[in-house]
């Protein structure tokens, strides 16, 4: 996808999104000055550990954060579903936002066990949004729901549709969750750790399914995960989050061949690789992810960073574009120069 198309056809454009939440111990700086754009048919992989703010960001895009938990919010979330004009979701009243969720943007959560209502038949859960948003009658909606189940690879959909969630396996449930999310053909799909609760063979099936559906519907997708492997071969762009900020953002291949941020590099090197021989010493990142309650100044990764210098502890590095590229950005004063993916990992 070329860059002009990216600019002209952005389904979602996030500018300086900042979210702070109230908690028992103080204000949590969950998302700080996050910006990115996402075009039709593209996948953005968001990678981060727990507490990196990736889930809070996803929920805030959908307007799903409880209002009373919000201490402060700023920035723009400009959403453009095809015929409609661009609109800023941050300014939109809840009532209007509700009409977008479902037909325009949808979300898949981590746990398929809790994402479905255990006391309702699949038919009810699948047809709900079809009837509400698309105004279908009962028969139409049911037919479409069966088609949807078949499309997400559920065998014998005509019988399955009258079952309850507990009669399905975890992988099947996640397929149903995807079918519900896609029922109204949204332009944007946010998948928050969609395969974390699933086994590795099921994970592959679900990721393949998402890739296929995305191709067919030309959806924009945000794929959130803690696993670099999940996004590595499935995302067009990857954003690495740490302590509420995007620390590096690049096209997938560029990221792996020329990572700039020490955290990206450290994360990549700390993962055991299937191609390495046994007992390969892992390069562990010392320390642990920082607290987001009233964070100190400076780069959040500095205390764990092997390249950190005095400046890193004082100033917060701004996000800058790598010279010679237009889509590789990072937030580091002393970016990594070598391509660590090519290095040997021997001690």
């Amino acid at each position, binding site marked *: 996808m070329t860059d002009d198309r990216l600019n002209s056809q952005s389904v979602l454009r996030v500018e300086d999104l900042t979210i702070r939440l109230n908690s028992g111990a103080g204000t949590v700086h969950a998302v700080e000055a996050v910006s990115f754009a996402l075009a039709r048919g593209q996948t953005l992989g968001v990678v981060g*550990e*727990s507490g990196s703010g990736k889930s809070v960001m996803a929920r805030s895009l959908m307007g799903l954060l409880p209002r009373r938990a919000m201490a402060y919010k700023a920035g723009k979330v400009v959403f453009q579903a095809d015929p409609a004009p661009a609109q800023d979701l941050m300014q939109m009243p809840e009532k209007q936002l509700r009409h977008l969720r479902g037909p325009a943007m949808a979300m898949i959560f981590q746990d398929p066990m809790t994402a479905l209502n255990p006391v309702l038949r699949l038919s009810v859960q699948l047809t709900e949004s079809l009837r509400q948003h698309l105004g279908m009658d009962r028969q139409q909606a049911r037919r479409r729901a069966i088609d949807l189940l078949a499309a997400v690879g559920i065998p014998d959909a005509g019988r399955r549709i009258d079952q309850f969630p507990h009669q399905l*396996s975890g*992988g*099947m449930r996640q397929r149903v969750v995807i079918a519900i999310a896609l029922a109204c053909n949204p332009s944007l799909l946010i998948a928050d750790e969609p395969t974390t609760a699933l*086994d*590795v*063979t*099921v*994970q*592959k099936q679900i*990721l*393949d399914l998402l*890739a*296929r559906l995305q191709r067919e519907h030309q959806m924009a997708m945000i794929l959130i995960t*803690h*696993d*670099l*492997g*999940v996004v*590595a*071969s*499935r995302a067009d762009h990857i954003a690495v989050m740490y302590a509420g900020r995007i620390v590096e953002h690049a096209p*997938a*291949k560029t990221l*792996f*061949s020329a990572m700039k941020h020490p955290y990206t590099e*450290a*994360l*990549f090197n*700390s*993962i*055991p*690789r*299937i*191609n*390495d*021989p*046994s*007992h*390969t*010493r*892992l*390069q*562990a*990142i*010392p320390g*642990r*992810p920082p607290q987001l309650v009233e964070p100190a100044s400076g780069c959040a990764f500095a205390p*764990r960073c092997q390249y950190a210098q005095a400046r890193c502890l004082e100033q917060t590095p701004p996000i800058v574009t790598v010279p010679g590229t237009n889509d590789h950005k990072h937030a580091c004063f002393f970016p990594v120069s070598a391509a660590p*993916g090519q290095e040997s990992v021997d001690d």
Partner: protein
Amino acid sequence: MTDQIPCHLRERDDIVLRILQLSVNFPVGKQTVQAVTNVSFDVARGETLGLVGESGCGKSTVGRAIMQLPAPSAGHVFFNGQDMTDLAGEALRQTRTGLQMIFQDPISSLNPRRRVRDIVAEGLTIWGRENADTRVEEVMAAVGLDAASAGDRRPHQFSGGQCQRICIARSLALDPDVLICDEPVSALDVSVQAQILNLLEDMKARYHLTMVFIAHNLAVVKNISDRVAVMYLGKLCEIGNTGSLYARPAHPYTRALLASIPDADPLAREQASIDGEPLLQGELPSPADPPSGCRFRTRCPYAQARCAEEIPQMQLVADDHYVACHFPILEPQAVR
């Protein structure tokens, strides 16, 4: 021992742990779930055996059955030549101290109402060992915790990674021979996982441990194991040294597992097939009513009539590499 001894058990003097025809059944309602059926393997001194499989394959149940927590329904667990299934009461309590376990959820593994020092010292206190304080300080230092500052705090004041360090310190206090790790890094942050894996390797060298490492993450298992055993639906389907098993998986299930792993390095497998041949079909059958013959046959792309009739036995396919399959994949086509 009238049972037939499977061919993949080794005749060696340094076998610390030998599991023979282990079966565990659980009553669930009126049905009986066969969580583990006729699983055999052995672990030599200083070796790490990785036990992999997906959820519900019985790998954790094997780990607990080794500890006799609870005791298996059938089969034998030989620890240093002593059959633990013959022991009961005081003798079992004594012998069990030679095997220790760490668990997936480090936070629920630690009693929230007790101080860290007491938790680590628990085993020493139970057995009235002398110099308990010195030992506690030593193992806490070994896992990277300062006994003076951390000892008087309670578990909820630590992060998940630190809690796992406390669990490791506790398991080492009694100086066990065997450490059984049940998914020890799955609940941890990615950046903390490597710390714990490295720590386990260090502790293994320092305290001369033999390990059984149970996990679902094949890359993690490969990193830490000398040998790997793959389980599916309560049975062992393949066992062998790590290099051979990962390079030339002979069981169709192992192949499917390996092909499913998303690799963090897209440059390393540029040609990886996203929509390749189907490696698995259908759904996991209920362990209450497992398929006849080979348990994997309902999902196997190569299944034939014989697979439904005859239970496949372990057979040698390469040096120290055994597979329980009637039609193992033997051509040298590496999946990765």
